[in-house]
């Protein structure tokens, strides 16, 4: 079984993010592996291990795919230190500020060429927060999509996948035959910390870098564009009281004053 995991490098959650000429300024901010994608890497490794792993012969390899600037290699390297086997970085100056249509196109083209059985994504990148890329990749490939998975089971013959899909609409049990795009939510597992051994081993693993021409698509004009951006005024400082036995009443008075009751 050949498994791919799509991971993104994103600005650190607490870092101050800025827009520069319509794009997120990715260069002047601390960048990390999107934490929701760690669950995808973990799940991929677990599925591989449950089916005999990837030793001798490489039957169940896990390949990490990332589109991003050169430094996004770090996000791939971290995934490799967790236990993934190899990585592909798609990096090209024309991809800066790529929208969802372009991102899904690039990722789908890479996946198509490599012939994977399973592609595993996180639910959401913490910077774009779209939650659309997994579904869009599946649509481009014409594969089944099993997203928002809180549990994933691959059958013993490695030919089909069943998941629990957990969303606001409740929990659905879903199933599909290979090949499948899976999206996992953070309830699914507890991602492992890279061990020292894992970190050392990752240094010897191969990360292949590809530009747009190697992927086989030409530069495209965007489908959507930011027209302007501005900083919002910070929230006004509110009232803060210590309960002296009447805080509940003061809260009610506040709500009444705001016409909420």
């Amino acid at each position, binding site marked *: 079984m050949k498994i791919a995991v799509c991971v993104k490098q994103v600005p650190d959650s607490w870092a101050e*993010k*800025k827009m520069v000429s319509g794009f997120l300024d990715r260069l002047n901010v601390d960048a990390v592996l999107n934490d*929701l994608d760690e669950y995808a890497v973990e799940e991929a490794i677990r599925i591989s291990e449950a089916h005999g792993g990837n030793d001798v012969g490489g039957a169940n390899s896990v390949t990490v795919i990332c589109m991003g600037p050169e430094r996004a290699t770090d996000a791939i390297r971290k995934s490799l230190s967790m236990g993934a086997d190899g990585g592909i970085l798609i990096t090209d100056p024309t991809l800066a500020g790529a929208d*969802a*249509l372009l991102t*899904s196109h690039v990722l789908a083209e890479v996946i198509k060429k490599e012939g994977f059985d399973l592609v595993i994504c996180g639910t*959401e990148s*913490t910077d774009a*927060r*779209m939650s*659309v890329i997994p*579904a*869009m990749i*599946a*649509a481009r490939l*014409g594969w*089944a*999509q*099993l997203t*928002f998975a*809180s549990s994933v089971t691959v059958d013993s013959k490695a030919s089909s996948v069943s998941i629990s*899909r957990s*969303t*606001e*609409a*409740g*929990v*659905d*049990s*879903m*199933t599909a*035959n290979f090949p*499948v795009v899976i999206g996992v*939510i953070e309830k699914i597992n507890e991602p492992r910390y890279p061990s020292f051994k894992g970190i050392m081993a990752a240094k010897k693993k191969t990360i292949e870098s590809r530009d747009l021409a190697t992927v086989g698509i030409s530069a495209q*004009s*965007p*489908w*959507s564009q930011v*027209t302007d*951006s*501005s*900083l*919002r005024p910070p*929230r*006004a400082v*509110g*009232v*803060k*009281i*210590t*309960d002296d036995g009447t*805080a*509940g*009443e003061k*809260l*009610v008075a506040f*709500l009444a004053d*705001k016409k*909420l*009751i």
Partner: protein
Amino acid sequence: MSNVFFLADFVGEKATRVNAELATAGARIGAVTAIVLAPIGEGSVRAAALTTGAISSIIVIESADFQNHGVAASADAIAQLVVQKTPDVLLVASHAFGKELAGIVAVITDSGIITDASDVSAEAVATQIIFGGSTTVHSQVVHGTKIITVRPNSISIDPVASSPSIEVIAIKVSEVAKKATVTATLPPVQGGRPELTDADIVVSGGRGTNGDFSAVEAFADSLGAAVGASRAATDAGWYPHTHQVGQTGKTVSPQLYVACGISGAIQHRAGMQTSKLIVVINKDAEAPIFELADFGVIGDLFTVLPQATQGVKARKA
């Protein structure tokens, strides 16, 4: 005149309030058509539930595939309709299902997509509040049908009533969209309270409840509010995952959000920081959630909430 389609939103067979918001936004841009996807035989009941907002027509598509094959099947039908009718704009509610559907339709129809808009102008320019509420951006789709997902509870409703024409259209879902099969469905337990993303007021509990949500629920009920929970509370099994507010739960932007026993981790904030007013009850004066509070109480939720519940009931009596 522009043609605006929106995908009508239902929880079970109940139409949600976001329909009127999508109709209101759509009417700024052009003539509004609501699309109702329904199981066989249920289309007309669902269409009849769309009573608010300037809706000129309703298109009903019925198929058992929508229930049996998940988002991909619904998206396929909408994409076929978009190819047939070439609307200028397609508006969809911004939740897990709506965003995925919009993404798939964007791929099939080669159209641009903008997610999580908090507003949409007459020129179909979307407003988004990003980076943890620090930045506003305006964006536009520049290719194909303008597909925009709109965050529920963000647009104030124009309460006009309409009597739209209803057309039933037969569409056969493509085989490629039926590759995943739904084998069982467990709808969320609603318990008589309003839907989280629809509610004007949300009262949420976190680890500070220590598993006892009764004070949170009683206060919520006194206000007619929905109940939310932090991930610490859903992980512990104290409250269903469907009620989780935050990055990996729901995004809410009610008139009032009350955070009880919640510390204010960045992942929780991601789901509630665009709320109009925020009230915090927390024992720890240093809890980061106080940074967002319009009204903060340093205190024990088990004493503050019951007193406040009494106070609300007294005023309503």
